[in-house]
């Protein structure tokens, strides 16, 4: 059985029984259940209740919410098999810092899908690798493409270090990667990304550092540092156009070091809308 189904109460399992290929479920208390597929989403008649949400949280945290307070404070819980559960509720503040979330009302369960070969279209970039940014709005297949690029780069003999903060790229369980990320890939799971860059460069000597969803100036500085150290990177970022990234106050610093920009769209999901390369013909 797919791992994400463990998170669902009997009522929800019954409601989604006839659907296949689900990529995302949205559970909002007292609201209709929403399920998404690669190309569409459907609002079902089933109304989600507190018990459904509590059930999912209990299973996702292995009945140990206190053990995942930090993760929950960041807005998500990582479940087995790379399933990521986004959480929304009331923030618990401790001296101005968010220390957790209580009274959780909404969950977004995202099911990872590994599509081996989806990066074949970027073989030219992979074979002549230099810093690459994968760009798209949410739910357009960035993570899936990133994972397959990592797999292909790694299998071509490059030493790749994968920073998998939310364990959705490698779906590591008990030290074993449940999703294929290549034979030359070292995976760091669960470590805050900003802490990881420095130790990765200094201790693991990677050729390429790969990471999902860069966000904010601090991370851009980390990537600049990596490039200065001679380490290539492969990263994803949220945006709906390459120009918006290039013109952005925060991300324009990357222009000097990024050689390839790949923009993905959602019609259909994963469609390469634009590939802009500074180093390829």
């Amino acid at each position, binding site marked *: 059985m797919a791992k994400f189904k463990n998170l669902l109460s009997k009522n929800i399992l019954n409601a989604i029984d006839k659907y296949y290929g689900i990529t995302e479920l949205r559970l909002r208390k007292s609201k209709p259940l929403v399920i998404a597929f690669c190309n569409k989403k459907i609002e079902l008649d089933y109304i989600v209740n507190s018990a459904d949400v509590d059930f999912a949280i*209990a299973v996702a945290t*292995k009945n140990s919410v*206190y*053990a995942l307070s930090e993760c929950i404070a960041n807005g998500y819980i990582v479940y087995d098999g790379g399933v990521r559960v986004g959480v929304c509720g009331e923030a618990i503040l401790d001296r101005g810092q968010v220390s*957790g979330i209580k009274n959780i009302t909404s969950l977004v369960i995202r099911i990872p899908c590994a599509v081996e070969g989806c990066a074949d279209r970027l073989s030219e970039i992979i074979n002549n690798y230099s810093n690459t940014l994968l760009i798209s709005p949410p739910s357009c297949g960035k993570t899936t493409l990133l994972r397959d690029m990592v797999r292909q780069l790694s299998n071509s003999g490059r030493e790749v270090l994968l920073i998998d903060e939310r364990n959705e790229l490698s779906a590591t369980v008990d030290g074993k990667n449940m999703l294929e990320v290549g034979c030359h890939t070292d995976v760091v799971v669960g470590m805050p990304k900003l802490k990881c860059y420095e130790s990765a460069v200094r201790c693991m000597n990677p050729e390429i550092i790969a990471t999902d969803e860069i966000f904010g100036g601090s991370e851009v500085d980390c990537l600049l540092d990596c490039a200065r150290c001679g380490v290539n990177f492969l990263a994803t970022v949220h945006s709906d156009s390459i120009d918006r990234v290039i013109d952005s106050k925060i991300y324009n610093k990357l222009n000097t070091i990024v050689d390839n920009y790949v923009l993905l769209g959602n019609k259909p999901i994963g469609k390469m809308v634009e590939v802009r390369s500074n180093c390829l013909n």
Partner: protein
Amino acid sequence: MLKLICGGVIAICLAHVGLGIKKYYKARAKLYEDWLKFVELLCDEIAYAKPTLDKIIDDFLAANRSEFTVVLTKFRQGIAEGKPTQEIKFNCRYLAQNERELLTEFLQNLGRFDAQTQLNNLAGYKAKIAKLKTAAEEKNNTNGTMAFKLMMLLGIVVLIVLA
């Protein structure tokens, strides 16, 4: 002679009943002792290492054995089956209805909150359980021991009367 044998049998039966009552009170006292010990372990672990609930329970079960661990074992099995704590059912014949409700509520609240809230929640239970433990120990020392002695005495009286 027959009377003497009957007297002996009755005396043994009464001693057995006395022993049963004593055991009951002793088991209750031990149950509360272990329950309190478990709460203290939870407080320590959640405040520092924050291991998952099943790990804490396994550690506790490895070192303790009582009527409380029987309940806890059942609860642990429920967790292993992937059930949320609210859905795990159990029973304990050594507890009164209101005590059973307290134990149920205690177990159902485990692991449902962030660390600080969980610790506050446990502190509340700790105070309640400590009170119940003291009461159970007092009853064990008075009622349990007295019941055993009384039954023994009654057995001897019956034996003497019949003889």
